[in-house]
Structure formats: structure tokens, C-alpha cells
């Protein structure tokens, strides 16, 4: 599994997609700053700007959409371009290949969130200032927790997409499907209590996440973990039975 993971990172770092997407995330944050500055929310500083970024442009819809692109490339394109079969010919087990790719997807999601977090703080500090100095550290911890609360739902969303990616052999169709799901879930998760039961609920639960009650943290974590577990198992079953035709 680690060999597969290493290869995925080599491919990521040797390709352009990661850098382009990272730049786009940073650009979207810069765009957010312009919007904030042009609005009446002048009380905003780098500490509350991150919250605005995370539950604004980052989660609705940029990061989930980018994850759809990454999932399509990692699973569908690898299969449809005929490169997956050559990995399997090396004797790597199908389960190892899929688990390696799933861990890569999960780490990719974390990297996107780290890029969002760091660039939001840097851009926010430069343009809005650091805010009340005494509260900076507390707010930083709060923002780290806020960012962390999104990780598992984002991974859960990506792993659900990976299951579909294993069934669809067309990367264009997979990207379209992924973006469609991201948009639909963003709407669906606003319906009262639905977010507690969907794989992506924690990604959009702005108000709920802010409160950080044990109940909220547990239920989002548990729901995401259940989806991650179920869809990882489904991925393994699908890939075990799948004929590698391309």
C-alpha cells in the first residue's frame, strides 16, 4: 500500500494539476478578500476571515469540486488510460492498490485544507490585520478545530465519489458527476437535520460546526466514519470483482 501511496505522490508532484488547483484555491481566497473589503463587513480580520473562507468559497464549492477532479484522475483516468493494469501486473494486490489510492485521496483532501488554512491566514493578515492580539491564539485554535471538523466529511465525500469512479470508465462523466454531487449536497445539507446523516454533512454545517458541542462533533465524525468504512469496503469488493479490460 505504501508503494502505491508513494507513486501517487510522485505523480501528483510531477503533474501540473496539483499546483494549478492550489493556485486556484489561493486565488479564490484573494477574491474573497476583495468581496469582504468591498462589503460593509469591515469588522472582519484574519481570525474570523478563515471561517468565512472555509464555509464560503472553499467548501461551497471549490475544494469539493477539486476533490472530484482528483478522484477522477486517481481512479477513472488511471483505469481508462490503461495504466492501472500495468500497476497490477507488478504483482501489487488489487486491495493494496485501492487502499493506497484512498489514503492518497484522504491526504490530498487534508493538503487542500492546509493550503486553504495557511493561505487564508497569510492573505487575511496582510490585508485585514491580525485583529485583537490577546485573542489571536484562542482564535487560531478555534480555527484549527473548525478546519479539522471538515476533514472527515471531506474525506467521506471523496471516498463516496471514488466508489462511483470505479464504476464509471469515463473521466469526463466522472468529473461531471462529482461536481453535480457537490452542488446537490451543498443544497441538500441545508435542509434541517439532513446534514447529520449525509456523507458530506459536516462540510456545510457552518452554524453547527461553530458551536462545537460534543453532540455535533461526535455525530459528524461518526457519520463520516461510517460512510468512509462502508464505501472503502464497497471499493474493495468492486475492484476485486472487476475485470480490468482497459
Amino acid at each position, binding site marked *: 500500500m505504501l*508503494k*502505491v501511496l*508513494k*507513486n501517487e505522490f*510522485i*505523480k501528483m508532484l*510531477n*503533474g*501540473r494539476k496539483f499546483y494549478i488547483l492550489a493556485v486556484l484555491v489561493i486565488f479564490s481566497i484573494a477574491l474573497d478578500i476583495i468581496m469582504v473589503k468591498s462589503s460593509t463587513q469591515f469588522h472582519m480580520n484574519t481570525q474570523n476571515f478563515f471561517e468565512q473562507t472555509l464555509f464560503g468559497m472553499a467548501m461551497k464549492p471549490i475544494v469539493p469540486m477539486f476533490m472530484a477532479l482528483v478522484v477522477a484522475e486517481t481512479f477513472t483516468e488511471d483505469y481508462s*488510460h*490503461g*495504466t492501472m*493494469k*500495468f*500497476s*497490477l*501486473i*507488478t*504483482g*501489487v*494486490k488489487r486491495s493494496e492498490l485501492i487502499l493506497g489510492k484512498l489514503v492518497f485521496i484522504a491526504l490530498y483532501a487534508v493538503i487542500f485544507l492546509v493550503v486553504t488554512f495557511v493561505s487564508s491566514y497569510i492573505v487575511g493578515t496582510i490585508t485585514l490585520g491580525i485583529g485583537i492580539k490577546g485573542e489571536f491564539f484562542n482564535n487560531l485554535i478555534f480555527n484549527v478545530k473548525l478546519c479539522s471538523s471538515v476533514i472527515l466529511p471531506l474525506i467521506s465525500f471523496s471516498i463516496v465519489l471514488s466508489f462511483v469512479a470505479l464504476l464509471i470508465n469515463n473521466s469526463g462523466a466522472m468529473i461531471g458527476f462529482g461536481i453535480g454531487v457537490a452542488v446537490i449536497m451543498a443544497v441538500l445539507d441545508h435542509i434541517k437535520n439532513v446534514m447529520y446523516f449525509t456523507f458530506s454533512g459536516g462540510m456545510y454545517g457552518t452554524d453547527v460546526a461553530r458551536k462545537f458541542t460534543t453532540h455535533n462533533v461526535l455525530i459528524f465524525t461518526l457519520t463520516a466514519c461510517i460512510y468512509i468504512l462502508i464505501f472503502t469496503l464497497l471499493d474493495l469488493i468492486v475492484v476485486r*470483482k472487476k*475485470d*480490468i*479490460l482497459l
Partner: protein
Amino acid sequence: MNNKCLLKTENLTKEYKGRKAVDNLNITVYEGDVYGFLGRNGAGKSTTIKSMLGLIKPTCGRVIINGYEVSKEREKAIEKIGAMVEAPSFYTGMSGYKNLCLYANLYGLPIKRVDEVLEMVGMINAKDKKVYKYSMGMKQRLGIARAFLNNPNVVILDEPTNGLDPQGIKEIRNLIQELSEKYKVTFIISSHILTEIQAVCNRIGIIEDGQLKVQGYVEELLNTKDEIIQISTVEKEKTVRLLNSLNIELNYEEFEGGLKVKVKKGNFNIINKVLVENDVNVKNMSCSENSLEEYFLNITKGEKKYA
């Protein structure tokens, strides 16, 4: 002749929605063979190869490689197998070298092995070029290099000359011959370019509609000790009578403009002399060897002439 069997399929069958893509296939590949796996497009060659590699699961039957059954011990069975299946697919945004490094990593091989295989196929100077800049011939070479990464004892090449120009085909043919002789590797080459197969392979298997039509040594199947004499004449009956009067073993077949006679090599002059002495009106008389192309067409049409 070494008869150690390295790869065999036993009653291999693969069905897709009730249609048999491979039907009770039994092929055997011995150590040192350069085995040509022939068939038209859609005959079941690639399905068979993918079954050998454990990429698709057979409906029934089994594949045994190096003594291991693929469905039960896939990792051990394919441990010493190198393969290029269908198109030579690579991560095109990366260099040839980096592509091979990915596979060396999966095999757990030292990176210096990548340089070794690139040297073997004559690609060392182009190793840092991105794969999308490679010509088809270079991609095929890189595909062969990848197939050699793990020091295999059997290399499977599926249509290795697909998409190549005549010069490229010749280069790949020479490369296969060179690698086969130098590294004593057993090759299985699937193709429908019959002249290439005839030039490279010592054994062949012909597959049609998923079924093995024939398997054997090229020399025996084509009976290269024989030649075909084509006699263009209107006096067919007289020619047949004269041929039958000769004390030589022959088979003949009539065609619109004359006769085709299959006979042991060296009898051309005797036949020519008899026809001249008996004043047979012969427009033209030519001699050719059995070709794999003709043999293949006869087999796949189910009309095994001269047999």
C-alpha cells in the same frame, strides 16, 4: 529442444453476457519459445492474455505460469512475467525514466534497473523526454523496457507493432529477436501481422472465435520442406496426367488459369522438364514457399488446403 512448460491454459473460458470470448482454450508455451499468438481482431487474443495476467477472471478453466495457478496464487504466478498489453500506456506528463521508476518502485527494485532496461531497448538517450513527446515506436520500446524491469523469464507482448511504420516494425522485430537470444527469455507475441510472426516465432497458436484452431511449431505447420508450384496452363487434364505419372509425392489443386501443385522442394526442374518434353502449353510457371499468411487464412476460413 527444451520441453519445460512455463505457461499453459487449461480449458480457459471467458464469457461476456452469454457470449464466449474465449472458449475452452488450451495453449502451452515451452521454455525458450517465441510463441506467436495469432488471430483476427476480436478473436480473443487480448482476453486470453489478460486472463493469463490475472486482470480478468475466467468463467472457467485455469492458467498455470511457472507452476503456479493464476487464480489461486496470482502474485507468485506473475512474479517472473513481463507484459505489454494492448497499447503502451504511460503517464504522458512524466518522462519515460520517471514512468519506469514508478513501476520499479512497485516491484521493489533498485532505481538503477531502470537505466539498465532503457539501455537494453536503446532508449537511454530519450529517457528524460516527456512521454507525450515520444513517437509510437519509442512508446513501444518503453513498453518493452517496462516488461523487462523485473527480469522476467516470460514476456508477453500484445500487438507490439501496432501503429508502427514499416521501419518501426522492423526495429521492434529485431529488438525482440535480439532480446530473445541475448537474455534467453520466452516470448508470447500476439499479432495479426503474419509476416512479422513468421520472421520471429518458432511456435504459433491460431485462435478464432475464442477457440484454438491449431498450435505447433512453425516449421512443422508450414512444412517448409515443401514448395508450391503454380502452373498457368489451359491443358489441365494433360498436366495432371503427366504429374501423376511422375514418381514423386504431390498434391494439387485446380484454379481457373491452371494448377497449384504442392511438392517436396527440388522437384521444380523435374516437373518443368516433363511438361516441356510433352509439349504442354504452359504460359507461366512459378514456385513459392508456404507462407504463414496463406496457412492462417486457410485455417481461419476452415479450408485447410493441401493438407
